[in-house]
């Protein structure tokens, strides 16, 4: 019987083979990703247990209970870590059951998050909780249904029958009488008690795990879902955590989208991919409609400062995310997707910008128009934030639909980071560094708050104590070579550079496209550092001056263009990635050198004030860094980095052209 089972499994695999074509190199099973995935599952289960414990404790013991309590932060941290590990697994495991499982999982997450958000808007927190729990339960049933074809496939049935004979000799004759088309044998004709049935089922299930890959994977997926269900319902039903609800819904939606894209990327079957694209398109439509509805409401009701932040803004960002995911799945080549991209991003962005400008213009206009009508001010912060959102929407829309060659290379390079584990490693490393720095920052702030004498040292911007530290500076200097090292050297090594340059495209276009791709990835990665202060400011409601964050982000972004240009240059010099990285570090160290000189000059009091000392001060990296951090952005600092970038990009183009004359 076991033999039969393995035989029919191999027949199934063979059909797969035919689908893939005759001469197929067997993919290596992604062992690392699977290990990470299983580990992530355990982490997720652990956080589910913690959340469940909290729920039990607060339900039965109340707040005064002496029982220990797991911090919400810890539970969120473990949940997010577990999800990240699962995501890593989803990104690198292409097996059919795995990708389908993740796809179903992501649909459920999208439905749950969407309904959660809806109920939150309509009925408040309890509605959300109920909706989430219900959808997750429904989802579990859906998953069970999805799993059915695999579980009840011929090999498994025969396996069940075989087990029946082996393990339960007394029941065997009766069990085998039942018709196999009715499902597993024990279902119909066996007069055993229901408890016994459950026991039997579990025993069989247990023995099936490990014999059939599909069953193992379904079990894995089911365990993931159960863990998520427990975590969410526990978080939601625990008292005093209601503020988290919209956040949880949002996180669910984002997680669902990322999982959906990853799973659909691996999908061969057009139907599944299209289904994914339609779900995302629907999400985009709903989110954009919500944003526009809120904006129109703000335009009509002018007496308050507007409802569009934060819900409308988040809806806009979410819509953008959905849309990008959908474009990723269906491309923009056919007319439908092309025009929906034009309408869905470029026109939507223009509309949002227009509405924001009109509403922001009302207060000053009303001074001329009416004696009594005084709309409340809108531009700061709502109008400004909406304009930023609109700009992002328009730029992404144009990048998406553009047929420009540079944009094509830019998109490929940016996406290429996510094709390999390297990008995930960089992001994860930065997240860990930032989290650590955040803890350090918190301890500094707490120590200051508890120490009266120390308090007077604390002047705004207090984010100085978060960013003017070794770790962020180190990260700023260390990431660019990591990002740029493969850009040209990898292409040189594999020979794809020849193919790239034989396309009708100029060297300048190639260099700029790659440079912009690397820079965009840097901006995303570097943005992780800003998440923690923003959470501190907006979610924990701690008022501090957040505006220096803007100048600091822009300023360090400018700093990065010179670092990245240096990295691009050295990457074009050699076909060895390691050498490229080492040379780029040397280049960045050379850029850091004026800072060392500046320190020497300032330690020798006498020589400050001379013109050379002033020049060195202007080009000292950390001095500029500090200026950005304190909200001062000087043109000469930006130009310094821009000119270095232009020089090195120009040299890179020359190097690429030099191949012709060797």
């Amino acid at each position, binding site marked *: 019987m076991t033999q039969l089972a393995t035989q029919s499994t191999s027949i199934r695999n063979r059909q797969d083979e035919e*689908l*893939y*074509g005759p*001469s*197929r*190199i067997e*993919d290596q099973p992604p062992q690392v990703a699977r290990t990470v995935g299983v580990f992530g599952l355990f982490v997720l289960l652990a956080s589910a247990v913690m959340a469940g414990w909290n729920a039990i404790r607060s339900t039965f013991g109340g707040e005064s209970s002496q029982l220990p309590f797991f911090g919400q932060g810890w539970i969120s941290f473990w949940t997010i870590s577990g999800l990240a590990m699962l995501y890593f697994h989803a990104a690198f495991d292409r097996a059919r059951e795995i990708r389908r499982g993740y796809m179903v999982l992501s649909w459920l997450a999208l439905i749950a998050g969407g309904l959660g958000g809806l109920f939150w808007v309509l009925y408040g927190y309890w509605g959300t909780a109920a909706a989430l729990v219900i959808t997750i339960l429904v989802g579990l049933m859906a998953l069970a249904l999805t799993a059915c074809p695999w579980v009840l496939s011929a090999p498994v049935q025969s396996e069940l029958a075989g087990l029946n004979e082996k393990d339960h000799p007394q029941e065997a004759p009766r069990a085998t009488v039942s018709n196999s088309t009715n499902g597993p044998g024990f279902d119909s004709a066996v007069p055993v008690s229901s408890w016994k049935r459950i026991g039997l089922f579990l025993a069989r299930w247990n023995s099936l795990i490990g014999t059939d890959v599909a069953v193992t994977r379904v079990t894995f997926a089911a365990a993931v879902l159960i863990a998520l269900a427990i975590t969410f319902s526990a978080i939601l039903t625990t008292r005093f955590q209601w503020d988290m609800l919209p956040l949880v819904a949002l996180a669910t939606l984002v997680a669902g989208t990322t999982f959906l894209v990853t799973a659909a*990327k691996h*999908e*061969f079957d057009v139907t599944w991919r299209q289904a994914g694209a339609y779900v995302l398109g629907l999400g985009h439509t709903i989110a954009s409609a919500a944003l526009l509805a809120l904006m129109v409401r703000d335009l009509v009701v002018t007496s308050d400062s507007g409802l569009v932040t934060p819900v409308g803004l988040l809806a806009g960002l979410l819509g953008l995310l959905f849309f990008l995911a959908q474009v990723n799945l269906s*491309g*923009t*080549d*056919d*007319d439908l997707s*092309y025009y929906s991209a034009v309408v869905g991003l470029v026109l939507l962005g223009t509309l949002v910008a227009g509405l924001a400008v009109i509403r922001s213009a009302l207060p000053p206009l009303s001074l001329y128009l009416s004696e009594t009508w005084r709309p409340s001010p809108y531009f700061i912060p709502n109008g400004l934030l909406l304009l930023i959102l609109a700009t992002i929407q328009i730029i992404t829309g144009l990048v998406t639909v553009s*047929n420009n*060659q540079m944009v*094509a*290379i830019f998109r*490929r390079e940016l996406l*290429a980071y996510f*094709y*390999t584990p390297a990008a995930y490693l960089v992001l994860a490393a930065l997240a860990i560094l930032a989290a650590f720095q955040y803890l350090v920052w918190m301890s500094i702030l707490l120590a200051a708050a508890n120490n009266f004498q120390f308090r007077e040292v604390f002047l705004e911007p207090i984010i100085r104590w978060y960013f003017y530290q070794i770790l962020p500076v180190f990260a700023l200097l260390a990431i660019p070579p990591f990002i740029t090292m493969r850009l040209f050297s990898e292409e040189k090594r*594999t*020979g*794809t*550079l*020849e*193919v*790239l*340059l*034989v*396309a*009708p*495209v*100029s060297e300048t276009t190639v260099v700029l496209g790659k440079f912009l791709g690397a820079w965009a990835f840097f901006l995303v990665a570097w943005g992780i550092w800003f998440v923690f202060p923003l959470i501190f400011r907006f979610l924990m409601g701690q008022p501090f001056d957040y505006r220096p964050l803007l100048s600091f982000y822009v300023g360090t972004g400018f700093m990065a263009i010179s670092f990245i240009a240096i990295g691009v240059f050295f990457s074009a010099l050699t076909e060895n990635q390691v050498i490229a990285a080492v040379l780029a570090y040397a280049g960045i160290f050379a850029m850091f050198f004026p800072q060392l000189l500046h320190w020497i000059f300032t330690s020798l009091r006498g020589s400050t004030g001379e013109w050379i000392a002033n020049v060195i001060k202007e080009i000292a990296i950390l001095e500029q860094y500090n200026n950005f951090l304190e909200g001062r952005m000087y043109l000469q600092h930006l130009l310094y980095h821009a000119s270095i970038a232009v020089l090195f990009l120009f040299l890179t183009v020359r190097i690429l052209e030099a*191949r*012709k*004359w*060797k």
Partner: protein
Amino acid sequence: MAMIEVHNLTKYFGQVLAVDHVNFSVDKGEIVGFLGPNGAGKTTTMRILTTYLSASSGSATVAGYDVMRQSREVRQHLGYLPEQVPLYNEMRVEEYLHFRARLKQVDRRLRTKRVEYVLERCRILPVRRRLIGTLSRGYRQRVGLADALVHDPPILILDEPTSGLDPAQQQETLNLIRELGQDHTVLLSTHILPEVEEVCQRVIIINQGRIALQDRLSHLQRDSHIVLEVKAPAEEARRLLQSIDGVRTVRVVPAEDGADGISGFHIETVDNHDLRLAIAERLLHQRWPIRRLDLRRRSLRDLFIQVTAGRALHHAA
């Protein structure tokens, strides 16, 4: 109309002369085999034609555009398949072709159609969603060819399109190239000679950077000689053969297994006329038993070895 025209093309790598005053042209609709031993300068010449390298001197035009001055137009009009078929391993076949189509400025409305067309034409529909890194050598070759075709170029330059393939795949690729030859001009380099005989109409043999020979394949194959083995005294038979009308030269060669009394001859005739019947008649008249009477066309292989080896000897001297 000449689609590719090469005039006195010369390329130095430092002190090394890789291509030495090469002249040739390829007409519209031709499939031309570009032959030569390893290191003869095939790839370098092709890279100059694709504008990837620049010539040290001389000129070349592709589709009427100068490779130096109008490099962009040249690249827009040719599809190039490099020898090792470098591809982005981390991309999917479909994604890669869409990216390449975008890069080669295929109009958006045509893009999907073109990609579907080349997927089907190169028979890679079944692997369209596969990661390129997981494809076998044969499929990679086809993806590379699909890329070369995606912007519908009139000229294809293929650098050893069959190297590293198994015989079945080689055959399939050759069939594809022959099909493509119906509406494209193809310049194809290789050192596998039967392939050339199968698909090409014309050959250019390059050796040590110089054109050693270029001619239509049908011309080359017309060159033939008659092999004769007959049981007769060698000198007497030679005189007899020499006297036959239309015989140009008769050369005595040892018979194949050196059997006693059997003499072997190589007979070249005027204008390559097939004189086998006349010879047989004369020999029968003398009652000399014939063991072998054969018309042998000169194979490309003989020619290739002769041309390349001759060149080498010449250089050594």
